[in-house]
């Protein structure tokens, strides 16, 4: 008999459809192309950062500094632009700064054997502090419109924002890499049992370093998207983004203990987050409530799988009792 199992990531999809339907009923402004475009734009950075974060959490690590890394790349972009560096070079500098943020986290974790939770709490504050060192209290504005328009306009002949292109490309790369390549297999293996991974010849430290570097680099990409979107680089941007990213990854069915998760579950979860935010904003719910909702989702995503596991165990006990 084929067992029908409930999968958390399938549940997310159902949840997403339900929220969309409910949203279309409660507010007339929800179900239309321009709002959809707005939702995508709203969650663009989250999507881009949730992709590498999925790898990292599956491998058993975490990066809490991702919001600060985003801001530091954005600040580096603004800083170098303020000092007259050509804009295309500023973009490359921003990417390199993001990569460096990730590499520093990765080296501290893999070479010095520190806990990623502790390391990235530290760099969360450190990178944020550096943003203020670079920019002072002054945001950088008046960036070239030819670039920043990419952050606010739609792709010609469509209602989709430009960030959609990045989401599709990186989403596809992330998806295939996680589920169909050696790197993906290794990521799961390390997350399930790091000791067995070493005994299987998997270069655990190199893999983790690469995952941290990838996360930093994607924070850099998100930093550029963010800067274009607001046509500005400020030292206090993207505050609290790490929570939204990690909350959606966990909400998407990735286990905080590592070893479990799917890319499409995460992508659906980020979209779900965007849809909920949109519905709440359109029904004039305050920003504080939005925070409550993100926190609630995070708790749900850890509590519900646990509840399912407990009830499964109970059923197993009952059935083995009745056998004996």
């Amino acid at each position, binding site marked *: 008999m084929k067992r029908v199992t409930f999968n958390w990531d399938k549940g997310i999809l159902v949840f997403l459809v339900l929220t969309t339907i409910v949203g279309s009923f409660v507010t007339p402004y929800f179900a239309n192309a321009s709002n959809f475009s707005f939702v995508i734009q709203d969650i663009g950075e989250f999507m881009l950062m949730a992709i590498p974060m999925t790898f990292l959490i599956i491998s058993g690590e975490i990066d809490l500094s991702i919001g600060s890394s985003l801001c530091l790349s954005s600040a580096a972009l603004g800083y170098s632009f303020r000092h007259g560096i050509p804009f295309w070079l500023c973009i490359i500098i921003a990417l390199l700064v993001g990569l460096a943020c990730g590499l520093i986290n990765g080296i501290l974790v893999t070479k010095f054997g520190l806990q990623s939770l502790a390391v990235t709490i530290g760099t969360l504050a450190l990178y944020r502090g550096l943003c203020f060192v670079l920019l002072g209290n002054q945001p950088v504005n008046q960036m070239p419109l030819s670039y920043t328009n990419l952050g606010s306009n739609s792709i010609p002949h469509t209602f989709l924002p430009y960030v959609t292109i990045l989401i599709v490309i990186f989403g596809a790369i992330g998806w*295939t*890499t996680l589920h*169909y*390549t*050696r790197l993906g*297999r*290794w990521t*799961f*293996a390390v997350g*399930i*049992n790091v*000791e*067995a*991974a*070493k*005994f*299987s*010849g*998997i*270069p655990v430290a190199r893999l983790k370093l690469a995952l941290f570097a990838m996360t930093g680099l994607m924070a850099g990409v998100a930093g550029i998207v963010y800067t274009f979107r607001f046509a500005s680089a400020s030292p206090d941007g993207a505050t609290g983004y790490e929570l939204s990213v990690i909350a959606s990854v966990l909400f998407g069915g990735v286990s905080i203990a590592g*070893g*479990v998760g799917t890319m499409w579950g995460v992508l659906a979860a980020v979209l779900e987050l965007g849809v909920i935010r949109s519905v709440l904003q359109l029904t004039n719910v305050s920003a504080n409530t939005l925070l409550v909702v993100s926190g609630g989702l995070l708790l749900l995503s850890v509590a519900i799988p646990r509840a399912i596991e407990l009830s499964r165990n109970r059923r197993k006990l009952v059935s083995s009792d009745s056998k004996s």
Partner: protein
Amino acid sequence: MTDAVLRVSGATKNFGGVRALHNASLTLYAGEIHALLGENGAGKSTLLKTLAGVHRLDAGEIILDGKKFHEGSTRLAREQGVAVIYQEPNLFPDLTLAENVFAGRQKVNGKIVDWVGMQTEAQTLFDQLGVPLNPRSRARGLSIADQQIVEIAKALSLNAKVIVMDEPTAALSSKEVERLFNVARALAKRGAAVVFVSHRLDEVFELTDRLTVMRDGATVGTGITLDTTEADVIHLMVGREVSELFPKGFHPIGDVVLSVKNLAHDGLFENISFDVRAGEIVALAGLVGSGRSEIARAIFGVEKYSHGTITMLGKELAAGSPSKAMAVGIALVPEDRRLQGLFMAASIAKNSSVTILNRIKKGFLVRSKDEAEIAKTWGETLELKYADINDPVERLSGGNQQKVVLAKWLASQPALLIVDEPTRGIDVGTKAQVHKLLSDEAGKGLAVLMISSELPEVLGMADRILVMREGLMVKEFSRAEATSANVIAAATGAVTV
């Protein structure tokens, strides 16, 4: 001697299909030091864990001090007067020694903890044992020998009637062993029955009054130590003539595959040199902790070594890199399959393919069809019992899990297969299959280095036997020379029998 303090009779215990105890018996008298002997897997640990309250017997009776012993609760076991001192005690590192002695049952005045009372009493206990420990210092950083003393003091404060020491000397220096012996004698003088488990026969003969030997879960002999010789003990421990059980087929032996020269790593093993040839099964015999697994891990590169060279197929191997070791055809089936061998939550297919992802990918993409094919082929060869190749390995039985570990490494088509305790904890039928498989693969030219604590397995399978003791390679036997008696004698350091 007077009436027995403890009398175990007809003790029987099964774990799944594995018979751990079968009609075992043990009698202890007050004031004696009693040695419990037997090979690994003879049932000593199960018996001791039952006394410690960890296990409950399927059948049999335990009488402690004339009353029926309540099984299955560690707390009740302690309260009834049984204390077990483990090889490596578990103290609370950040608590003081006095607090550790009284852990879980602090002395109180009303609701207030009586620190001074605990410290005074702990001091008295340490004095009685003749050991200069400060009850006010913290347990962190204490040597294993001193940690054991703290545990013994705890046993004393509980007025334990039976004190079990499970291989207490394995990690001690000779001076510390001496001190422990004095403590044991002091305990016996106070009227406790001390059970002493050790693989070192010289210690047994120096310290104990009586001894009991176990084999295959049963008690096969008991007597007064003075009236017994080492040869008697070894004969009782080994018993059967078993080398026919695990026949290795005869194959021609080829060229040298692995050559180890002067390998050493501080404190673990020293001056280790040996070769393994194609088609040959070489066994590393010896007691647990004699350095065998450490050598295996050094060869495979999961651990480092300080001196020496490892040459594989004529080329020197870089240290400390499993992936480089794999690239030159080394495979290691590790000691602990749950912790080191398998990804329990991952599927049979994914577990089997983790070593060969490079071979089954096209461009960047892993071909899951090939992956399942290879896993199924090996599953057939190994007679693996499974419902679906995509089921997680945690659903398989222990024996089948071990087959998956073997599949994972055989799939990598190694030239040298190192197997560390390849049949530990698996049933007899599967054991025979594993042995046949190793023999067949050797027949096809595979070089096999086998580590095993089971003597029958060593004697039955190996073309050559290298015996390790305390980090040194002390003896080499050919298949024809080796007998259970001379291998055990070499491994335990007993005088030749």
